[in-house]
């Protein structure tokens, strides 16, 4: 068999490639033991630009070196597959063992070798960079060869390279801060990781914070322990304002009246009110399947100003309205950038605002106050690499579509 040939001979096989990658990993372990986890800050601009540019220059230079064995090997499929095998092994370790954000003082050898923080371990970073290099050289070679039907190949590999380079190396330039802004006020200060007050080049004025809730869910609880019933797998009924009958445990429950905003009106009843302190309330009639006992009353989850209302069903159980869940929360803000640019926008989950290289995300609010929250918090992320990553994602997605339409190129469809 061919494989009997000396492993470093030409053509380079899987064995030589696996040895090469294993050697890189071994070197990574040594670095890890010597210097501890990889510090991403090291790749901070301009280092990441230089690394990326070097990769591109080297891969273009490798083209001019005719029949260069090393270039062939580095851009070959054997090395690519071997790198993937090691990436698979590292990600399996990540997927199977708990990962830590920081190492304890008395970390064992496993943790000190980087297995407890795989993504910031030297071996992983080295494999990542080698994968980037191998991708760049493969793309360069294939562009030069100009093979027919290489479009899908190029879309996938160029897209992946852009994503891995811009999102990976670019991660070193990202900064994230959480900013708390009171309604009606302007804020530009955040706390850094070491609890120092920092000023950002953006200021946010919170003009309004709006929170919408889902209709609060009904549940039966144990009057003594407060545990939702049945214990272990509590049944919660999310009623639909249009459909108002259900049964919970042994009780048929009918909704008679529902207010999204209500205040107590005396004698246990509630009435509509648009006061800021209003809460949800529902009037129900409940009948027990067996004893046919009927209970009538109002339920409310209450809030930080109003007490909750419950309905005692019998000696043991009570019907309650659970804390309402957030449907959406929106902050109406005005952003002032140092450049003088002013932007007004509504920011909510899944809909961040972009101002220059900053992205402003709706982060949170006062959970205990719910819709009465007087502040809103934002995560501000500085990310100058957004466009290259999105360009990469789009190319890669087109490549994925290409795979679906084209299948494996070079072979006809087999009926």
């Amino acid at each position, binding site marked *: 068999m061919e494989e009997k040939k000396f492993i470093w001979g030409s053509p380079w096989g899987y064995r030589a490639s696996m040895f090469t990658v294993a050697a890189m990993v071994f070197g990574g372990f040594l670095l890890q033991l010597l210097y501890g986890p990889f510090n991403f800050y090291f790749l901070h601009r301009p280092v990441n630009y230089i690394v990326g540019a070097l990769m591109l220059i080297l891969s273009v230079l490798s083209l001019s070196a005719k029949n260069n064995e090393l270039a062939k090997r580095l851009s070959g499929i*054997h090395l690519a597959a071997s790198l993937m095998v090691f990436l698979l092994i590292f990600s399996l370790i*990540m997927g199977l063992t708990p990962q830590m954000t920081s190492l304890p003082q008395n970390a064992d050898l496993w943790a000190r070798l980087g297995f407890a923080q795989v993504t910031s371990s030297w071996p992983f970073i080295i494999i990542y960079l080698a994968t980037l290099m191998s991708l760049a050289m493969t793309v360069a070679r294939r562009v030069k060869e100009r093979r027919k039907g290489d479009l899908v190949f190029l879309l996938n590999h160029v897209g992946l390279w852009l994503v891995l380079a811009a999102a990976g190396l670019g991660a070193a330039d990202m900064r994230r801060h959480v900013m708390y802004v009171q309604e009606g006020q302007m804020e530009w200060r955040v706390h850094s990781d070491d609890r120092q007050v920092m000023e950002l080049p953006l200021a946010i004025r919170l003009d309004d914070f709006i929170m919408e809730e889902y209709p609060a869910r009904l549940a039966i609880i144990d009057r003594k322990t407060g545990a939702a019933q049945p214990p272990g797998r509590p049944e919660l009924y*999310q009623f639909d304002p249009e459909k108002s009958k259900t049964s919970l445990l042994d009780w048929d429950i009918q909704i008679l009246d529902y207010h999204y905003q209500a205040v107590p009106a005396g004698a246990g009843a509630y009435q509509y009110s648009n006061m800021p302190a209003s809460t949800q309330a529902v009037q129900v009639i409940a009948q027990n399947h067996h004893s046919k006992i009927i209970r009538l009353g109002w339920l409310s989850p209450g809030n930080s100003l109003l007490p909750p209302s419950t309905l005692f069903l019998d000696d043991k159980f009570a019907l309650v309205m659970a804390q309402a869940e957030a449907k*959406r929360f929106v902050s109406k803000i005005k952003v002032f950038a140092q450049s003088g640019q002013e932007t007004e926008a509504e920011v909510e989950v899944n809909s961040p605002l972009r101002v220059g290289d900053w992205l402003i995300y709706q982060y949170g609010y006062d959970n205990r106050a719910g819709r009465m929250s007087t502040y809103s918090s934002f995560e501000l992320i500085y990310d100058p690499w957004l466009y290259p990553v999105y360009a990469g994602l789009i190319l890669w997605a087109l490549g994925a579509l290409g795979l679906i339409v084209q299948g494996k190129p070079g072979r006809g469809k087999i009926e």
Partner: protein
Amino acid sequence: MTWAHFNWLAPPAIILWFLASLMVMRRKNKLADMFMIGGILIFAVFIVGFWIGVQRPPMRTMGETRLWHSFFLSAAGFLAYKRWKYSWLLVFSSLLASVFAIINMLKPEMHSIALMPALQSYYFVPHVTAYMLSYSILAVGTIASLIQLKKINSGKPDFNLYAFLDNIIYIGLGFLMLGLITGAAWAKEAWGHYWSWDPKETWAFITAAAYLIYIHLRLREANRKITLLMLPLAFVLLMITWLGTSFLPSASGSVHVYS
């Protein structure tokens, strides 16, 4: 339109999809096409009518999401079938689409189950449907790989089956990567990270890497058995990604616990 109309429109669509599956199995392809398109059109009409009816994009509740799943699964499955002429693609996708439609009819109380704000996104449906399609297609690839392994053991590998296997894995991987890409773009929009090595993300990466290894091993002659064994192995990893992440010690605190 409201959900009340759904109970009148969904059964005919399901029946049409069922008929399409029957026809394609009997090689009556024209009829199959007509039935399939008919079912998809009924769904399209309902979605448009319902959108107008609720006066907002119907992507908020679980029931509404299932509506899109049915629509996209049937439409994408039909297109993939037209391209590749594998009749099981049509049968599979119409079956999956019908399951979601039936859940919406039988469990109407699940319509209004709340979607937490992070899930309310136009990425939700393409993200989940792409993964569902890829999982079903890769399942077929796994079965085919087991058949081929058996044939190799008896000394008679089927070379047509190799070509089928390669194509099917390319298609399945294509959908898998679309799921991953939409997931990364969505995560950036919701949390500001493309990829945070959440346990589900780590396992999605593992699964994708395993299929990528298969594809690259097939390009240069490697040991055929080892290469083929990658497929059942990759599918085991895929099942862990899909179902197992809730049980892994490394997975406590995953953002995907609801899925």
